[in-house]
């Protein structure tokens, strides 16, 4: 029998592909071979794997057949194959790996043992992991558990091979055979490699995740995690994962700066006759974080009316924010604003000092307050930063011969603003504080209640936080009082172009910037307004954190 094996092996000396194919078929026909004989035949077949079969389909087929034939020899030849494989060049390794994969279960233990024996040799480990990637079913399961260990290997090649192996395992192992725990470990091992320092490792991690996704190995939660990570790699979000991505994202972030130096600032405002410089000519801190500012804006000052507002951008990178006006001087050409530092843009505004310029001031915007002579008294109510905004309207009401009461509310005495200024344009001013530290204890509505009990009221205007405007509106319910509120919706352009400031008024959609800002309180959907104002709260936090830096 030995002679048969020897005879066969001799035939491998041939260069003739047809003949070699015949020899392989002949081997497949042999039966009753001893372990020794099988080993001899294996040694005969193996040299075929070293042949250069690129662009030679016939030789390629032959080698495929050789892999199969070798595998048929079974467990007896595993050691031979492994001992050759550890020496094999990179191109040939795959053939050994396939043969081992085809042998299947009997090859698993020897391969795993070899892994331990060659633990110092990265190259061999890579080859063995490659072989492991061809195991199927039960063998794949065993392989997978071993491959985990190598996903954290210091050698990036080994690590990549382990990831590749895991990806393949999801192909070769039926979903039902892999326990949830195994799959979870597998996912963690692969996922953590997404942040590996070498691109090749990350590449294989992405591929392995892809294979696992395709084979439904991931839970919904894991899919979501993967989704995020893949998007990060592609630069779809700012979840900074991939080092290369961060570089790219940074580059992309500043690319626009190279391109649009003009857009950033230089383009602003005219050069000749209409050149406008929005210089801050006076600044006072009224209460902490709330400032009064006088800004040079002659053209706006000439035209603005009570109830109208402006939009400012403090700096070239800034958002456009609407602000109400608390006064103006048409001759000297300035407007007066009150800015409360509560978000990024308002903080940047109050950080400016006398002599500094605001990047843009646009206005006047919106419709003027609805003012006429009333039978009963007119009450203007201001809360917080809104106190400034009621002054011009009060002045206009007074000028028409109305009896005008002012009401100013704050949490406590120290937060009251613009009381003296309001006194100048009103018949009488009431002050309310929540803690009773000055004036009436309670809310502005308490003062309004007091006035209403004393004499008939025909008109109210409330400017301030939404709950305060709602409370005043509620008090007017069931009366003939013309109750106006001034809405501070989120805006972008302020001219009606974008519709960001949509409010529901009398069940119709209105634009606060153009149709407003004053609306009859009874028609306004305050609940919707409150919720719409919260649209960007998360972003505001991010912008503030970035400002802190």
């Amino acid at each position: 029998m030995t002679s048969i094996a020897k005879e066969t092996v001799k035939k491998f000396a041939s260069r003739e592909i047809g003949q070699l194919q015949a020899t392989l078929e002949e081997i497949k026909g042999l039966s009753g071979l001893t372990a020794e004989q099988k080993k001899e035949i294996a040694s005969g077949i193996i040299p075929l794997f070293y042949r250069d079969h690129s662009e030679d389909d016939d030789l390629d087929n032959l080698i495929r057949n050789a892999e199969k034939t070798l595998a048929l020899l079974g467990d007896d030849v595993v050691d031979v194959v492994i001992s050759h494989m550890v020496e094999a060049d990179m191109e040939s390794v795959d053939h050994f790996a396939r043969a081992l994969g085809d042998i299947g279960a009997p090859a698993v233990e020897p391969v795993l043992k070899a892994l331990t024996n060659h633990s110092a040799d990265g190259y061999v480990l890579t080859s063995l992991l490659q072989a492991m990637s061809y195991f199927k079913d039960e063998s794949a399961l065993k392989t997978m558990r071993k491959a985990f260990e190598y996903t954290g290997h210091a050698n990036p090649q080994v690590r990549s091979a382990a990831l590749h192996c895991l990806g393949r395992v999801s192909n070769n192992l039926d979903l039902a055979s892999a326990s949830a725990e195994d799959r979870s470990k597998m996912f963690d091992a692969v996922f953590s490699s997404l942040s590996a320092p070498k691109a090749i490792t990350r590449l294989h991690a992405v591929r392995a995740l892809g294979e696992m996704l395709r084979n439904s190995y991931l839970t919904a939660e894991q899919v979501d995690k993967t989704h995020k990570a893949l998007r990060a790699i592609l630069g779809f979000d700012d979840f900074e994962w991939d080092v290369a991505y961060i570089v790219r994202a940074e580059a992309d972030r500043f690319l626009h700066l190279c391109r649009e130096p003009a857009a950033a600032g230089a383009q602003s405002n005219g050069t000749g006759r209409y050149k406008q410089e929005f210089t801050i000519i006076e600044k006072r801190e009224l209460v902490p974080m709330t400032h009064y500012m006088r800004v040079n804006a002659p053209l706006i000052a000439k035209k603005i009316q009570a109830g109208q507002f402006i939009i400012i951008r403090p700096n070239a990178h800034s958002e456009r924010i609407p602000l109400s006006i608390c006064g103006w001087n048409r001759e000297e050409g300035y407007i007066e604003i009150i800015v409360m530092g509560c978000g990024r843009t308002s903080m940047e505004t109050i950080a400016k000092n006398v002599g500094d310029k605001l990047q843009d001031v646009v206005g006047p915007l919106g419709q003027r307050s609805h003012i006429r002579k009333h039978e009963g008294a007119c009450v203007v109510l201001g809360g917080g930063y809104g106190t400034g905004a009621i002054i011009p309207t009060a002045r206009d009401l007074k000028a028409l011969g109305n009896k005008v009461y002012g009401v100013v509310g704050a949490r406590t005495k120290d937060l009251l603003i613009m009381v003296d200024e309001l006194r100048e344009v009103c018949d009488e001013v009431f002050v309310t504080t929540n803690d009773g530290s000055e004036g009436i204890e309670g809310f502005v509505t308490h003062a309004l209640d007091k006035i209403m009990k004393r004499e008939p009221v025909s008109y109210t205007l409330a400017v301030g936080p939404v709950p305060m405007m709602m409370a005043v509106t509620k008090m007017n319910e069931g009366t003939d009082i013309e109750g106006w509120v001034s809405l501070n919706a989120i805006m972008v352009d302020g001219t009606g172009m974008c519709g960001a400031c949509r409010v529901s008024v009398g069940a119709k959609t209105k634009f606060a910037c153009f149709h407003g800002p004053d609306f009859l309180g009874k028609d306004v959907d305050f609940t919707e307004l409150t919720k719409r104002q919260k649209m960007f709260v998360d972003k505001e936090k991010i912008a503030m954190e970035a400002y802190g830096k």
Partner: protein
Amino acid sequence: MNEKKKINTKERMKKPRNEMPLHEAAKRITNFEEVPIGYTLEQAMDEAGRCIQCKKPECIGGCPVGIDIPAFLSLLEEGDVAGAARKIRETNFLPAACGRVCPQDKQCEAVCIVGKKNDSVAIGNLERFVADYEKQTNMNRVPDMPPETGKRVAIVGSGPAGLTAAYELRKRGHAVTVFEAFHRGGGVMVYGIPRFRLPLEIIDDDIQLLVDMGVEFVYDMIIGNILTLDDLIEKEGFDAVFIGTGAGLPKMLGIPGENLNGVYSANEYLTRIYLMHAIHFPENTTPLFQGKKMAVIGAGNTAMDTLRTGKRLGAQVTCYYRRSREEAPARSEELEHAEQEFIDFKWLSNPIEFIGDENNFVTGIKCAVMKLSEPDDSGRRKPVPTGETFIDEVDTVVFSLGCDVNPIIPNATPDLRVNKWGIVMVDEETCHTSKKGVFAGGDAITGGSTVILAMGQAKNAALKVHEYLMGDFNYSLNVPTDPNAPGIQWAGRFSKAKR
């Protein structure tokens, strides 16, 4: 050169069209770089050689500004790019922008004779090439200026109409001041057209050309509020005013839930991104709420822009349109680009409600399934509901349903006549409004169209403004008084009036 001339018409007709090289779809959806790469000089000369130089060219009439297309193609074929550029600039001041955003497939290329037997000549791509080449090689673009006339014109709005009018009037020696409400010029080309279609440099370059010609730009000016039209004429001493304020008032759907958070008009969404640079948040502090599943309603050019922008911001985007693909008003190239970029389309889906959560954020869109009726007398197939509805989960909705005319100026100018849709009424021949010395053009008088139509109209109006300023304006004006009268419609070549 002579060899090329020898190519006969038959051979020209047989040459295949040079397709515009594009960035790969998978790659381009990760960035905001321009999608088409542009022709090489060789490609451009070859493509220009496909023009058969018809005796009666249809393409000139197909162009709203009447570019002498065969003439510029002939110069380009010989490699005289500078000559071609000069030829285009005789009639069109924004070739780089027009080559990119004009719907050529509905204009010049639609009537191209070559297109009857083969693909039409890629006129748009060639216009783009000439304009880009001109810029890259720093050719002098400032035209020869006549002596100053001493007349002053105020232009309201710095979009396509305003810039074109400014160019035409400055070229004729008038002092021109452009008033813009925003903090930078370009109008809809900046806030409404994405950077991957029209890079900012191109717009800024054209504005720079006007500045070099001596046009004054004033930003942050809300004409109507800060200065009325009467102020401009009576106090500021302008001899004429041109209104090019465009169509800046988004149309609403009027369905339940349209004011939910996460529901934007296309104007707001695109303005946040392209004018205010919300994609560079927080370096630029304008925020954008961008969800993962975005619905865009409408299938016009702006809808395509919105879809492709959303895709670039990582969202899964779907287009909902109540008619079918055939009726989609978008430029065919934009529609194709969107389809290449893995964007889903739900044709015959008419949104009837947006569903929100307790915090007022949108979570779903409810649509009626439509079908097209049999063609009516006018041959139009109307979408009619089938009675079926479906609900899709979404977290961002952008509606792109077109715009009405911005009401600020009409509101502040009682003697400026508008129709019931707010469109500024003008005399069709001269674009003169009901107010003496005030002309209008662009979307403000049509109610919304394209960059090139706005330019075509502005150009026509600018010529009339010139006649008016020079004192040979003797037309009997016919400004419609009927509030139901439609806006100006463009029908073929704009204005055959003597020049």
